[in-house]
C-alpha cells in the first residue's frame, strides 16, 4: 500500500503559501501590538504547521529553516525574547526565504538557497536569549502554567542539539510530534518505550479494526493518511481500509476512516504510535479478532459518517488551549477546486444561457403554453445555476489584501516615513479572475501613496498634522459594483501644477485649464508619458504607472476615480464589476456584422442627422448638448465596408481616456446580457477586442475593447 508523495506537491505549495501569507500578516500585527499572546500563538501555529508539512514532504531546507525560526518564535511566545524591530525584520527575512524555497519547489528547480546568514542570525537570537533567560527564568515567568514550564525546561536541550547539527528528517518529524503533542501529555518517548515493552508480552498476531479520526482542522488529509499508513506498516500490516486506499488518497472521506490491521502489538501501543502523528485526533478500537478469522467485509455506505458521540478519546487528545486557541480562523467545510474547472463550468453555463435565449426565440414563434411554461422554468433554473456558479468563483478580497500590510510597512520603513495602514472590508468578495488582476494595480497605488502621498514626519508636523500618516485600503460593495479605495492623508495632488505642466506639454489649452477639475487632472496623470514630469515637486512620480492602473481597471470593465485635496490627501477608487464572465452589453451592427460594446463604457446613445456632422481641423465632430464630440465611424475604423448612411445614423457615446467619443454605427440592436469567451493565443494579438460572445442565434460577435481600440 505504497503512496507516492509527489502528487501532494501542489497541495503542499498551496498550503505553504497560505501559511506564509498568514505569517506575514500576523507579524505585521505583532509589530503593532508586541505583547498580544493570541497573535504570537497564531504565528507559532502557522510556523509549526509549515515545518511539519515540510518535514512530511521531505523538503529538508524548508524544515531546517522553519525549525530554526520556530526556536526564536518559541522564545517570543515564552517572553524570553523581546519583540524588536530587528527581530521582526529578521523573521520577515525568514518568511521571504521560505517563500523563495516554496517557489523553487513549485518550479522544481531544486536550487539550494543560502540560508546561512539567516540561520546564524536566528541562532544568535535564541542562543543569546537562553543564556540570559537561564538566570532570570524564575522571576520572569511566575504566572505561567505548569505545562509550559515543563516544556521550557526540556527545550534548551533540544535547542542545543539542533544548534550543533541540522535536524534530519526523522528528527524533524519527532520535533513536530513534540510540538503538538507535548501539551496533551502524551510524551513521545514514553509512548515509544511502552510500545517496545508491550511488544514482548503479546504473542501472535491479531487483527484489530480501528477507526482513525483526524483533527477537524486537518488540512493535508491525504498526507496524514500517508503518514498513518507508513506508521502502521512499521508495526504490523494493513489488511484493508474503508474507504479504499485510493479514496483516502483522494481525500474522499470526511474526518474518519477505518483500517483492518494485523499486528502483534497491543491496541494501546498501536494507538500510542498513531497518536504521535500530528493532526490525528483519536483512534478507536472497533473490534479485535484472531488473525485467522479475518474476513474482509463488504463496504457499507455511510459507515464512516463521523458521529460526535462515538469519540471517547476526543477530550483527551484535543490540543490544549495553547494551540487550539480561539483566535484560530474558523474553517468552514470547503473543497479546493482548480480555477480552470470553474472557468469550464462558467463556459458551460454560458452556453446554456445562449441556448436558453435561442429556445426562447423559437418558443416565441410557437403557440404552445406548455412549452413556454417549461422554458420559463428552465430560464429560472439557468439563472439560479449561473448565480451559484458565479458565487463559487467569488473570493474575499482578503486573499490579496493580506500581503499589503507587510509591503506598506517595509516601504514606509525604507523611505523613513511613519504610516498607519488600515484595511477595511476584507470580507467583500470579487470574482477570482478580477481579484488576481487588480493585485498589481493596488500594489501600485499603495506604493504611490507611501512614496508620494504621505509626507515626511517632520514636514507633517510642520503642517500641524500628526507625524504618523495614515493609508487606508477599503473595499465596499455598491449594488452591482465593488469599490476598492486607496486613500492617504498626505499632501494631496496640486491639480494646478498638473494643469500647468499639461499646458506646457501641449496636452491642453489655457482655456481648458480653467474649466478642469479633479477628474481631468486624473486623466492627465494617467496619460502615458506625463509622469516624466519630475521637476514638479509634489507631482513627480505620481503618474508613474497610473495609466497602467487605469487601463487595467477599464479593461476589466471598471473605472478609476480620483479625488484629491491639496494638503489633505488623495484617494483612488477602483470601481469593479462583480464578475467578468457575463456582462451587460450594447449590441450594434456595422456593415452586416454585430459587435458588442460593454455597457460600462457607454455614456449614452443618440441618433444624428448627416447634416449635423461638422468638421473641426479635418476631423468629423458632432455637437451633443453643448459638447463637441469627435466622431468615429466604426465601419471605416475596422476596415469594413461602409454603408452610405442617408439622412440619419445612430451613435454610441463612449467614455475613454481624455474625452467622450461618439461612435457611428449602422444600427443599434439593444442591450443584452452576454457571456464573454476569451480569444485564444492566435487572435489575442489583434488589439481592440476584449473577446467574443456567442449570440442566441449561434452567431459569433466580437466584443469591442473601447479603451485599446481608441488608444
Amino acid at each position, binding site marked *: 500500500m505504497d503512496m507516492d508523495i509527489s502528487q501532494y506537491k501542489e497541495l503542499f505549495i498551496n498550503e505553504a503559501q497560505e501559511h506564509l501569507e498568514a505569517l506575514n500578516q500576523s507579524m505585521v500585527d505583532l509589530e503593532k501590538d508586541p505583547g498580544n499572546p493570541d497573535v504570537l500563538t497564531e504565528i507559532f501555529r502557522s510556523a509549526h504547521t509549515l515545518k511539519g508539512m515540510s518535514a512530511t514532504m521531505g523538503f529538508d531546507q524548508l524544515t531546517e529553516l522553519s525549525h530554526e525560526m520556530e526556536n526564536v518564535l518559541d522564545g517570543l511566545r515564552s517572553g524570553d525574547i523581546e519583540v524588536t524591530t530587528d527581530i521582526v525584520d529578521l523573521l520577515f527575512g525568514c518568511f521571504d526565504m521560505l517563500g523563495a524555497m516554496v517557489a523553487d519547489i513549485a518550479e522544481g528547480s531544486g536550487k539550494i538557497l543560502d540560508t546561512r546568514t539567516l540561520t546564524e542570525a536566528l541562532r544568535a537570537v535564541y542562543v543569546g536569549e537562553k543564556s540570559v533567560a537561564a538566570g532570570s527564568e524564575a522571576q520572569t515567568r511566575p504566572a505561567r502554567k505548569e505545562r509550559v514550564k515543563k516544556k521550557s525546561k526540556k527545550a534548551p536541550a533540544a535547542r542545543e542539539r539542533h544548534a550543533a547539527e541540522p535536524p534530519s528528517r526523522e528528527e524533524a518529524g519527532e520535533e513536530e510530534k513534540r510540538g503538538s503533542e507535548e501539551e496533551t501529555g502524551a510524551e513521545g518517548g514514553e509512548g515509544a518505550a511502552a510500545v517496545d515493552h508491550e511488544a514482548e508480552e503479546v504473542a501472535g498476531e491479531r487483527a484489530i479494526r480501528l477507526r482513525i479520526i483526524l483533527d477537524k482542522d486537518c488540512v493535508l488529509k491525504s498526507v496524514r493518511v500517508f503518514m498513518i499508513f507508513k506508521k502502521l506498516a512499521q508495526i504490523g500490516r494493513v489488511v484493508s481500509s474503508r474507504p479504499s486506499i485510493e479514496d483516502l488518497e483522494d481525500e474522499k472521506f470526511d474526518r474518519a476512516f477505518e483500517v483492518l490491521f494485523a499486528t502483534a502489538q497491543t491496541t494501546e501501543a498501536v494507538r500510542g504510535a498513531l497518536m504521535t502523528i500530528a493532526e490525528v485526533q483519536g483512534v478507536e478500537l472497533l473490534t479485535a479478532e484472531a488473525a485467522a478469522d479475518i474476513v474482509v467485509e463488504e463496504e457499507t455506505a455511510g459507515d464512516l459518517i463521523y458521529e460526535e458521540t462515538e469519540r471517547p478519546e476526543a477530550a483527551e487528545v484535543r490540543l490544549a488551549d495553547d494551540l487550539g486557541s480561539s483566535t484560530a480562523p474558523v474553517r468552514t467545510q470547503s473543497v479546493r477546486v482548480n480555477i480552470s474547472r470553474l472557468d469550464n463550468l462558467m463556459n458551460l453555463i454560458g452556453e446554456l444561457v445562449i441556448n436558453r435565449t435561442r429556445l426562447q426565440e423559437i418558443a416565441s414563434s410557437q403557440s404552445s403554453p406548455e412549452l413556454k411554461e417549461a422554458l420559463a422554468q428552465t430560464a429560472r433554473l439557468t439563472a439560479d445555476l449561473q448565480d451559484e456558479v458565479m458565487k463559487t468563483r467569488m473570493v474575499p478580497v482578503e486573499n490579496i489584501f493580506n500581503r499589503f500590510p507587510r509591503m506598506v510597512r517595509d516601504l514606509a520603513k525604507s523611505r523613513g516615513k511613519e504610516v498607519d495602514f488600515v484595511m477595511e472590508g476584507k470580507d467583500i468578495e470579487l470574482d477570482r479572475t478580477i481579484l488576481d488582476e487588480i493585485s498589481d494595480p493596488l500594489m501600485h497605488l499603495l506604493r504611490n501613496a507611501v512614496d508620494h502621498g504621505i509626507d515626511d514626519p517632520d514636514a507633517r508636523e510642520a503642517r500641524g498634522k500628526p507625524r504618523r500618516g495614515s493609508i487606508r485600503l477599503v473595499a465596499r460593495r455598491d449594488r452591482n459594483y465593488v469599490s476598492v479605495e486607496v486613500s492617504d492623508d498626505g499632501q494631496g495632488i496640486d491639480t494646478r501644477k498638473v494643469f500647468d505642466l499639461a499646458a506646457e506639454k501641449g496636452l491642453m489649452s489655457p482655456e481648458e485649464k480653467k474649466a478642469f477639475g479633479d477628474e481631468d487632472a486624473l486623466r492627465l496623470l494617467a496619460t502615458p508619458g506625463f509622469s516624466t514630469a519630475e521637476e514638479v515637486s509634489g507631482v513627480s512620480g505620481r503618474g508613474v504607472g497610473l495609466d497602467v492602473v487605469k487601463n487595467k481597471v477599464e479593461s476589466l470593465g471598471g473605472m478609476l476615480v480620483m479625488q484629491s485635496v491639496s494638503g489633505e490627501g488623495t484617494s483612488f477608487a477602483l470601481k469593479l464589476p462583480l464578475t467578468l464572465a457575463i456582462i451587460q452589453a450594447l449590441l450594434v451592427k456595422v456593415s452586416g456584422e454585430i459587435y458588442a460594446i460593454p455597457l460600462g463604457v457607454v455614456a449614452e446613445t443618440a441618433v444624428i442627422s448627416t447634416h449635423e456632422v461638422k468638421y473641426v481641423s479635418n476631423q468629423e465632430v458632432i455637437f451633443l448638448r453643448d459638447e463637441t464630440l469627435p466622431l468615429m465611424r466604426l465601419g471605416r475604423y475596422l476596415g469594413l465596408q461602409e454603408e452610405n448612411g442617408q439622412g440619419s445614423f445612430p451613435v454610441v457615446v463612449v467614455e475613454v481616456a481624455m474625452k467622450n467619443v461618439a461612435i457611428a454605427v449602422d444600427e443599434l440592436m439593444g442591450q443584452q446580457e452576454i457571456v464573454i469567451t476569451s480569444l*485564444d493565443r492566435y487572435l489575442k*494579438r489583434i488589439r481592440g477586442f476584449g473577446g*467574443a460572445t456567442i449570440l442566441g442565434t449561434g452567431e459569433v*460577435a466580437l466584443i469591442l475593447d473601447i479603451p485599446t481600440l481608441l488608444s
Partner: protein
Amino acid sequence: MADDTRSADEIQLVVFSLGREEFAVEVTQVREIMRMEEITRMPKSPDFVEGIINLRGQIIAVVELAKRLNLEAGERSGDTRIIVVEAEDIKVGMIVDSVSEVLRVSADAVEPSPTLATDVAAAYLRGVVKQDNRLIILLDLTKVLSLQEMAGLEF
C-alpha cells in the same frame, strides 16, 4: 529529416486539395473536418485570417490556407471544408478546397521536399510524399500557424 530515423513507423495523413496541388497534415493534429459555415469577420487581422467561428462554445480563428501559403484560392463550393487542426495548443480552422482521403504511408515515404516541386515557400513544408504518381505536400503546421506574422499587428 528527423522522421527518417523512425524507419518502420507508419503515419496517417489527411489529404486535401488547394488549387491544383495536393497537401496533407498528420491525422494526429486534426481535430475535426467540418463543412463551410458562417464566419464572423475579424477586423484588423492579417488578410489570411478569414474570421472566427463558434466551435461548440470555443471561439477559434479560421484562416484561408491558400492565402496563408500564397497560393491562388479555389472557388467556394460544396466541397469546401474547414479542417480544424491543433498545434502547440493553438486550435485553428483552415479552409481547403476539398478533403479527399486519409492516407496511411510509412514514415520513409516522406522525402525532403524538392524546392521546385511547389510554389509554397519551403519554410512551411515538412516534406513530400510520392504515391502512385501523385505528389502530396506535407505541411509543417507549427510553421503554418506560426504567430510571427501576427506579432507585427499591434497598432
